[in-house]
């Protein structure tokens, strides 16, 4: 009887707020360019950890790489996360997110594959654990210029404002 009294509200809560009760956490790796000092890393971490869907941040102070624990049960916007690095006064060198396989094909409440467009080498397609994002905010200028040529050649339109990202 007591068990039933406990389980029924719990099951109800689980059905009503699954995302709130079970955060889907995974790691995003951001290579930060333009800094070497720990004070600079601290400024980057401070900006990243304030982003709504970020759970926690671990900065590698020597490699200047941020391991960002992201709550995928919330609305995700990778542009917001990248801009946090720029707001600290530095630049994104690389931006690596979990693949659709890693996050059970659910991204912002819809089919994950609709949010990503692969434009890398075909041989690795479907086997990646992570996606390296391509975009002005996600890599250094030189690398982006090279990718931009490919994007233009394929006559693709970047739609990062509607959460559709190119990756390789």
């Amino acid at each position, binding site marked *: 009887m007591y068990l039933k009294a406990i389980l029924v509200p719990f099951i109800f809560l689980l059905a009503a707020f699954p995302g709130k009760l079970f955060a889907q956490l995974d790691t995003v790796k951001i290579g930060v360019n333009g800094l070497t*000092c720990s004070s600079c890393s601290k*400024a980057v*971490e401070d900006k990243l950890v*304030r982003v709504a869907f970020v759970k*926690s941040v671990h900065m590698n102070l020597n490699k200047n790489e941020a391991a960002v624990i992201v709550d995928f049960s919330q609305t995700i916007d990778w542009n917001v996360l990248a801009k946090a690095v720029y707001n600290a*006064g530095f630049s994104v060198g690389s931006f690596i997110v979990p693949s659709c396989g890693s996050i059970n094909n659910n991204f912002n409440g819809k089919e994950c594959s609709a949010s990503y467009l692969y434009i890398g080498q075909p041989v690795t397609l479907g086997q990646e654990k992570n996606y390296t994002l391509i975009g002005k905010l996600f890599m250094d200028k030189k690398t982006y210029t090279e990718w931009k040529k490919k994007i233009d050649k394929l006559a693709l339109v970047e739609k990062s404002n509607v959460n559709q990202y190119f990756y390789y």
Partner: protein
Amino acid sequence: MIFRWAIFFSVFSICLNGFTQELFPRAEPASTVPKGVSGFRFFYNRYKEQSSGRTKEGFYLRYMLGITSKWTVMSTLGISNHHYSAFPTDILQYFFNHHLRGYPPAGFQIEGVNVYTKYRFYTLDKYHQHFRMAAFAEGCKSFVAHDSAEPTLMTDNTGYGGGIIATYLYERFAASVTAGYIHPLVYKQTDIDIRFQSGNATYIELSTGYRVWPLEYSTYSDLNINLYAEFMWKSYGMAHLEQYGQTIHFDKFASSNPYSYQELSGSSYIDSRFSVQFISNSNTRIDFGVTLALKNRSYNYWAPMFTLQYQTYLYGKRKSKKKHS
């Protein structure tokens, strides 16, 4: 002797340039304060005026704010015993004697307020390196009677200025060059009908430094120890003094009062500041420095001038999220 030590230190710092930071105690780097972050810097300088044996001191409090990721604004309030708040009636006696022991000393007072703004207009960031350029403009409202040809906007002269900064960081090596201009405005004093204006100035600063500790970071709480060598070349024009509508020509005092003549004449000099910096918790920093004359001298201070700085950024409270380092 001082010159030899300065040369030795410069060569030494260039040789060890694998370990450098760009948190220069004297110059501003092209990098800016993070967006929405504010900070405070307290700085203090002290030197002995050798002609009078008096100790001259300046206390400065600076507030810094990152308006955007590329645009920083800061304001500095200065308090010192460097100057009188106004020139006394007998202006020539003042110019000839105020650096001497027998002349009444200036007391501590609010020296002025400086407002400085910097915009980073070029950024080339790479892994463990960057090249950045910024433009800056500054203005100062001074509340004292500055009495030498060399203008400074921190915070001796009312005036304005600006310039360009280029900062290069490679691994742990950083160097920065600042080229600037200062235009002092006319100081007017109606009770004795005085108009005094320092000369216009141009200057170039070269700043380098290196991190000696830690060689590898383990946590944010690692104590950082950085050494800096900064050099400045400054050139300025002759001061202009006018009383009762008549220009007072300093040339006629050149032989009888050479010090006053030199102080009021246009000149140029090179000086240097050598500093050691300690940073705790990757935020709070304390710098100890000494400024030395290398070629000619500034008549705004007597070398050696000792400096102490304390700076901290206020990141604001975070929401209750976990963070690791």
